[in-house]
C-alpha cells in the first residue's frame, strides 16, 4: 500500500513496530491497523473488539479477533505474550484505564498508546470563547453522544507515566496533517506513545 494512503496515526504506529513482531490490538475496530501490520511488517496479530459489525469486517480481512470488551479481555493472557499491545484511540473509551494499562504492560513487552489531545489549541479556544465542550477533528463528538469516557492531554499522559514509573521510550505528536514537534500539548491533535515498564 502506498504510504500516502495510510492514515497518519497508523503510519506512526507502523514505524514504532519492528518486523515479525506479535501484536495485540485492544479495540481494533475494523482491523485496518492490524491488516497493515500483517502486510507491511509481517506481524502476527490478534485483535479485541466490542462491536459486532466491526468483527465481521475483521474476519473478512482474515484477521484473528475476539469479540469482547477490553476491560475484561486482558486478564486471560499470560505475561509478556505479545511484543506489543496497542491501544489506539481506545484508551479514552475504556472504563478502568489504570487497570487496563497496567495489565497491558504485563501482557505486552511494550505498549503503544494513541489518544486525542484534549489540550489542543482548538479545544482550548472553544472552551474559552464559546464556553462549550470542544468538538474538533480528533474529538468529533457532541457531549451527549460521545463514546469517550476520559479526556486527557499529552501533558496528563506524561505526568501519569512519571507517577506510575512507566518509561516513555518514544512519543510522537501529530497535528492535523503532519507531525508537530513544536509545543505538542498545544498543537498536537493526537499523541502516540511507546511505553514500557
Amino acid at each position: 500500500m502506498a504510504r500516502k494512503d495510510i492514515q497518519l496515526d497508523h503510519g506512526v504506529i507502523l514505524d514504532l513496530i519492528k518486523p515479525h513482531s506479535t501484536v495485540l490490538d485492544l479495540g481494533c475496530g475494523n482491523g485496518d491497523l492490524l491488516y497493515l501490520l500483517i502486510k507491511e511488517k509481517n506481524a502476527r496479530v490478534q485483535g479485541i473488539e466490542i462491536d459486532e459489525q466491526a468483527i465481521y469486517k475483521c474476519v473478512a480481512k482474515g484477521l484473528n479477533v475476539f469479540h469482547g470488551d477490553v476491560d475484561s479481555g486482558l486478564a486471560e493472557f499470560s505475561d509478556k505474550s505479545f511484543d506489543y499491545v496497542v491501544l489506539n484511540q481506545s484508551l479514552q473509551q475504556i472504563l478502568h484505564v489504570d487497570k487496563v494499562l497496567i495489565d497491558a504492560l504485563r501482557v505486552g513487552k511494550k505498549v503503544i498508546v494513541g489518544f486525542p489531545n484534549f489540550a489542543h489549541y482548538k479545544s482550548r479556544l472553544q472552551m474559552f470563547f464559546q464556553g462549550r465542550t470542544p468538538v474538533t477533528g480528533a474529538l468529533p463528538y457532541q457531549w451527549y453522544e460521545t463514546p469517550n469516557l476520559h479526556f486527557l492531554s499529552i501533558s496528563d499522559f506524561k505526568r501519569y507515566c512519571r507517577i506510575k514509573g512507566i518509561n516513555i521510550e518514544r512519543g510522537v505528536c501529530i497535528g492535523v496533517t503532519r507531525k508537530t514537534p513544536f509545543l505538542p500539548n498545544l498543537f498536537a491533535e493526537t499523541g502516540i506513545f511507546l511505553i514500557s515498564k
Partner: protein
Amino acid sequence: MNKEKKIIQNNKVGIVKTHTFSFDSLKLESGEKFGPVNLAYETYGFLNKDKSNAILITHALSGDAHAAGVHEGKDNPGWWDDFIGPAKAFDTDKYFVICSNILGGCKGSTGPASINPKTARPYALDFPLITINDIVNAQKRLVEYLGIEKLLSVVGGSMGGQQVLSWLVNYPQNIRSAVPIATTIKHSPQQIAFNEVGRQAIMADGHWKSGSYYEGTAPSKGLAVARMIGHITYMSDKSMAEKFGRAKKDIAETFKFTADFEVEGYLRYRGDNFVKRFDANSYLYITKAMDNFDASGGRRFEEILRGIKVKVLVISFKSDWLYPAYQSKEIVKACKLAGVETTYCEIASTYGHDAFLLEVEEETHLLKHFLKKVFYAYEVTGDYGA
C-alpha cells in the same frame, strides 16, 4: 424461468443419496470392543486432487447424515441446507462436505435399535454406553476410508460442537481448523438436569419396558415430552413471545386441559412429529454421552491445547441460555492461554440456542471468510484483498 428463481435453484445441492460405511469393530473408550459398526453418511461437492478441501459437519442431538439437498422423490431438504451448496458458507463448488449420522444414532448408523448379530434382535439396552470421543473415533474411520488424511475443517453446533472439540483434542494433527458453535467444554449441572428430565420422561413411559419395546409399542409419550422440554430450551423468552404470544388456538373446547395456547399446540406438534423419526433409546444414550463429555478430561483445557496448530473459530449467540456465551468464552479463554490462533464472535441473535440453525447471514459471513483463510493459508504474507 426468471433470473431470480434460477439463482436460487443454482445454489442447491440437488438430489443426494445416503451411503453406508461399515467396519468390523471399534475400540470404545470403556475398553470394550464393539462391532460391527455401520455409519450412514452423505457427501456434497468433490474431493480435490490433493484432498485438502474436505470439511466434516457434525450434527446435533436429533440430527442425521442428511445435512443438505433432497432425497429422490422427497422434498424436505437436509437440516443445514441453508449453509451447504454452491456459493453458500460451505461452498460445494470449492469444498467437499461430509456429514455422518453418529454412532448410537437411529438414522442409518449403528445404535440401540440396530440388530445385535449375536441375538438377531435389537440391541436395546445391550448397546454399550458410548461417549462423544467414541462417536468421533468412528467418524475418524469414515474420514480415513474416504482417503482424507487432513480435514480442512470440522464444524458443528451444540452436540456437534462437542464433537468438534473432541476432534480438536484427540486429532489436532488431522484437522487444519475447528469451528465449535454454541457449545461447551463440559455440560453444566443445568444442562445435565434438562437432559435428565428428558430421560426420566422416556423411562416413566409404561411402554419403555427397560428399553425392550422394539417388538411392541414404542414409548412415544415419554419421548414426545422429552422433545417438548428440549424445544423450550432451544428457544428464548423473546423468540417464543414473538412466535406465539399468548395467542389461543381456534378450536372448540372438548377437554379442560386441551392445548389452548399456540405454544402448547406447537410443542405437542413438535413432540408428536419427533417420535415418528427418532428412537427413544438413542435419545437416552446420546444425551448421556453429551452429559459425560468433558473435552478437558478433568485437566486445564489450555494445557491440552498448548502447541496445537489448528485455527479455531468460536461462535455463540447472545440469547442462547442452554449453551450460554460464557461457555464459548471459556473455550476462547483456553485458546488464548494456549496461544492457539482463534477468532470469537457472539452474534446478537434473539433465537436462543436454535440460532445456530437460523442465523444464516451472519454465520455464513464468518464461516466463508474463515474457511477461505484456512484453505488458502495466506496468513502473514497477506496476499489477500481486504
